[in-house]
């Protein structure tokens, strides 16, 4: 299995993709585009897949005894499987106002929405359960409980579509949504995927992500940024207006570019270091990056981390 996606095949422009009709179609295009470059087996797992042998002990189910091994070794071994139940995936979409920023291409919330839709499509395709939680605005109370049915996918897509169409507002931290997920997943492990620019994230958010990981949940973060936020390509007298407040700033960008970029890089480095140290699967994604590549990176990283985490 190849761990790196073949870049030559990944050229779906997010901006072009955004012009497609509906989110389900976009999700399907992304998934098929992503999977077409991979060996099917890489993600063709099952929830009852064999993992290893274990010496029999009283109480073990007899149907899992490997009789062939008994015939060879004259000892009883019980087959153990990788997953004993369906995967539950929680998709957390940051719908705060900062996600509405679109430097030159599509808005971050739109990119995040498409990425999560593709992921949901993939999860449903694998008959796992997927749910959706939006954060960023206290007025929002969007929770799509995890389901594995195909019809559920349509509901989830509809919610995502409405969130994107509504546009990003508010300045609430993702911490509240993560706390809620922590409550929901108290009894079962889950995969939690957060798509956010983390501009509103406080220390509490990062702590919750680390806490979820400590509770043996799989946590992935898609840190979505606009290319303009990385390069700051502005020139001439410019008035910058905040998306989440009434703050304004009239400035000559050239005068502060160096300082801004240094601060941005410091922020990214700190975030990456904090999350990586906590075992969170961290992906820095720019909105001009092809979505299928983003999806593939997420999947490849998941598959690479999978055995180790099972071992853990």
């Amino acid at each position: 299995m190849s761990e790196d996606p073949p870049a030559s095949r990944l050229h779906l422009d997010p901006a072009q993709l955004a012009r497609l009709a509906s989110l389900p179609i976009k999700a399907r295009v992304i998934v098929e585009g992503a999977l077409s470059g991979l060996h099917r087996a890489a993600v063709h797992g099952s929830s009852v897949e064999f993992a290893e042998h274990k010496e029999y002990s009283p109480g073990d189910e007899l149907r899992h005894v490997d009789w062939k091994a008994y015939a060879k070794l004259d000892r009883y071994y019980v087959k153990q499987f990788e997953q004993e139940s369906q995967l539950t995936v929680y998709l957390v979409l940051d719908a705060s106002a900062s996600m509405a920023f679109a430097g030159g291409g599509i808005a971050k919330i739109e990119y995040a929405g498409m990425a999560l839709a593709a992921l949901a499509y993939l999860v449903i395709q694998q008959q796992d359960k997927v749910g959706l939680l939006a954060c960023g605005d206290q007025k929002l109370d969007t929770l799509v409980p995890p389901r594995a049915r195909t019809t559920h996918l349509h509901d989830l897509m509809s919610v995502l579509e409405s969130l994107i169409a509504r546009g990003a507002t508010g300045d609430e931290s993702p911490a509240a949504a993560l706390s809620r997920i922590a409550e929901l997943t108290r009894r079962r492990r889950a995969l939690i995927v957060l798509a956010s620019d983390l501009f509103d994230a406080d220390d509490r958010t990062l702590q919750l992500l680390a806490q979820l990981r400590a509770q043996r949940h799989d946590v992935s973060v898609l840190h979505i940024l606009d290319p303009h936020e990385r390069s700051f390509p502005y020139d001439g007298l410019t008035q910058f207006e905040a998306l989440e407040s009434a703050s304004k700033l009239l400035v000559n960008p050239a005068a502060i570019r160096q300082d801004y970029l240094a601060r941005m890089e410091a922020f990214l480095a700190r975030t990456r270091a904090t999350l990586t140290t906590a075992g969170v699967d961290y992906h820095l994604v720019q909105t001009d990056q092809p979505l299928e590549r983003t999806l593939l990176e997420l999947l490849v990283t998941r598959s690479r981390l999978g055995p180790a985490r099972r071992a853990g």
Partner: protein
Amino acid sequence: MGFLAPLMLVGVAALAVPIAIHLIGRRRARVVKFAALDFLLATKRRTARRFRLRERMLLLVRAIACAAVAIALAKPYTSCARKGPAVTRGPQAAVLVIDDSFAAGYLIDGKRWLRSATDEARRILTQLGPEAEVAIVRAAEAADHPSELTRDHLRLRDQLLALEPSARPADTTRALARAAQLLAASSHVRKTVFLISLLAKTGVRPDDPPWGKDGPTLVTSELRPPKLPNLAVTALRADPDPGGATRGVAFDAEVGNFSDAASKVELSLAIADRVVARGTLEVGPGERKTKRFLAALPAGARATDAYVALSGDALAIDDRRWVRASLRDRVRVLIVDGDPRTVRHDDEVFYLEAALRPGDREDSGTSVRVITSEELAGVEPRARGTAGAIDLDEFDVVVLANVTALPTARVNVLADWMRAGGGILVSPGDHVDPAAYDRTMLPLLPQSLRDPIDTTWGAPPDERDSRALHLVKWEADHPIFTPFSKAAPELADAKFFEISLLGPTTSADRKVLARFTNGAAALVEASIGAGRTLLYTSTLDRDWNDLPIHPGFLPLMQQAVRHLARKHAAFGETDHTVGSSVVLPTGDLKKLEVRGPDGAGAVFEGDRIAGRSSVRFGRTDRPGVYRVIGTDQTGSTHERDELAFVVNVDARGSDLTPAPAAALPVSGTGSGGTPVDDSRRIELWHALAAAVLLLLLAEGLLVQR
């Protein structure tokens, strides 16, 4: 502050332009909704203040620059108290009259006033601009003046730099008159005379205005301090000290105090450059006082130079005055009276005797003995040892006044004595028979006599004066006539009613020194041997003329006997003022050199001296002692002490009292010679233009940041 073009101030409205641009620029700034504004704000917090300051400074600089351009175009100016004369730039004719009299050497704060004057002149020259036609006229007396105006300002500047105080007093009126002449020849409408002068009243003659009502504008530059106190030795005489020894001389030094305060002056007398006496003198304000020094001339010296100096003040040149002191030889004159009378004033030689011994004073320098024609027999050898014997060697000059023709023996004695160096003056009269003179007296005469003519013969009494002859055409350079000017009314006014005519002659030795209006000779001179003879063709009393009652008779007779006695050095005669010409008798010299105090001088030789009884030296430019070196016919060269003379500054120039404003000529503008406006305009637009450039530079630097 005022503006020459106030309408241009409308342009100050341009001040709104940068403000508008600033505001519009703010409004037209690109608006970007930005998610990571917190990062910008954090960054901006450090630079915001600087950015705001820069923006405001830019706005300020641009606003000031716009306003400054408009204000500069309006040509602002301000006024301040005038320090110098008003000068307008542009095409015009101007003359800078600069006082370079010796008073210009007055030290003010250790710097000569003339330096300030030339600095001021250069400033005026600069302000007049290159289009102005200018001339520089020096105000010293008898200074050379330019012939035309010029635009060659570089040459004028060189002239100013080379200007030094002269040794002459100021003649401001003459300089102004020359300035007016120069300006009159110019076609420019604007004509100005800039007078940079100490304005001493002695240099201004209010009764001799240099121009009329249509004269040029006069702008005076008040460079002189309100007070210029000055002390000067204004006169110095050296006379024989009647109470002293034979070599005793009394020096009378007159000191003038040209100031408002009394002063105690320290004086010193130096003879032959050695200080021999000192003294003090209290001189009140405006006073002149005389200090007498008694001293003896050095042993063996017949003549020497001396000076009196006072302790230095701000004007040094007039603090020292020279005099030529010599032990005058007494002229011994034997007068032979051909027509003695018992009534004194009818006597033939009454006037001559009075002229040679005025007041019958012992110090007249002349000793006179009067004898009759008969007594002259005592000169003959056979009379020796008798009571009436006369030793001619005891006399320098013999005057034969209306003497009948002498016998040959006496004539021979007199002729021998004359050839040995004696001098004879012969005058005719009623007792003189020309025929008899022709027979015996010719050895004593320069030319034979003929019958006299009476110009008034047959004329009615009221026409007698109009028919009289007068003296004209005398040899002004001859030592006898040096005391007289060219016109000399004291001689020319005398009426001659009868004169003796002279016979024909081919002698080249005789010389006519003076003639009458009819062309007849009045005074004829001849050198015979080592002696001289003079023939005066009229009487020495009032019988044939009225010269004896004219002022010219005394100096004429004094000079005549001194010339005949070959004794010219006399007290007071060798004192000249700077610039005057000095007549030097050549005697038998074939070369004569005059050396001034600075070493410069003149040499008279060849055609300049041959056949001349005297030479005229005019380069008396500096005060001091002028020495004369003569070369006689034998080629022997030595200093002629008796011909040395001294030159002093004209004491008139020492009085620096300012001339009243009314004494100055009326300016062409009718301003009375003083600037109309006491304030001076300073144009500011140059500075503003420079400020605009600096502001634009600052704006550029701010934009770059």
